[in-house]
């Protein structure tokens, strides 16, 4: 394995606390460049680990959780109210549609019946008029005037 690959492997492994793989150790035993790299990277990591974080008290986290909870609460309530209002609107629209359909049903049915069943053809109409002219002149006259 060449030095460049070894450097990559070395740096990949060095952040772990575990021992370096055997092939890396073998290479290190005969490569001064990689030995230097290891030494330098270790000193960088040593400095990095000693870079302390500012302390944040337990009380701060407790307080901030309370604040967070307060911020989350209203949102949850608003969402619930919105969901409830949405459901009500849907139910209301559904009911209106149902009742209007129910209410206008006779008119629709009548129109359908008139259009599809009861209306006689033109030929039947003439025959009916001819018949009524002889048998019921008044009705025949009315039909003639209205068609």
């Amino acid at each position, binding site marked *: 394995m060449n030095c460049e690959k070894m450097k990559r492997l070395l740096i*990949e492994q060095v952040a772990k606390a575990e021992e370096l793989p055997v092939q890396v150790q073998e290479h290190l035993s005969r490569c001064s460049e990689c030995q230097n790299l290891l030494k*330098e990277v270790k000193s*960088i*990591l040593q400095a990095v680990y000693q*870079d302390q974080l*500012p302390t944040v008290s337990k009380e701060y*986290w407790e307080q901030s*959780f309370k604040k*967070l909870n307060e911020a*989350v609460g209203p949102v949850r309530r608003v969402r619930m109210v919105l969901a409830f209002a949405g459901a009500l609107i849907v139910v209301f629209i559904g009911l209106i549609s149902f009742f209007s359909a129910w209410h206008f049903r006779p008119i629709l049915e009548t129109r359908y019946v008139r259009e599809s069943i009861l209306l006689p053809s033109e030929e039947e109409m003439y025959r009916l008029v001819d018949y009524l002219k002889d048998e019921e002149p008044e009705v025949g006259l009315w039909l003639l005037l209205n068609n």
Partner: protein
Amino acid sequence: MSSVQKAKEQIDFENCYQEFAPRLFAVAYRLLRNQTDALDVVQESFLRAFRKRNNFRGRAKVSTWLYRIVTNRCYDVLRKRSREKKIEYGENYHAKSAGFNGEHWLQQEKMIAMVRQEMEKLTEKQKTVFILRVYEELPYDEIARITHSRVGTVKATFFQSVMKIRKGLKERGVFANELRKDEKAVN
């Protein structure tokens, strides 16, 4: 939502906060180098996470998801900050000017400050990978999920970030004397 379910969710949320808030603060602080900003980012991230909890599909770990939210929020803050002003990170140490004699290790404080300054020169992604790998000791595959990258890319990014810090420190003269000492030892 039933009261039992609500109580359970509340407990989960509280446990999650107690477990991850300090860890997320560590990442945010190291990315932002400002305590107030880091605390704000953690708070905002949790608020965002809680509001978007229904979008969490459970394919990744909760921690991965939270790390992702925090790092993205930190990038926003860094971008905003870079538009507004550049923040100085304390005294600009240089090994040679700081009385570095090379025979003994630098005063650790100065070394830490120099490494910190070199870390600030990394790109957002390099810095994130470096922090998650070194401080949080996360495996490469988890870092890959957090940063939306491939494992190979994460490894390469980590390598680049370490080499960049090393190069920066060398330019400051930190390792020069060490090398000379080694060369002498070899000869």
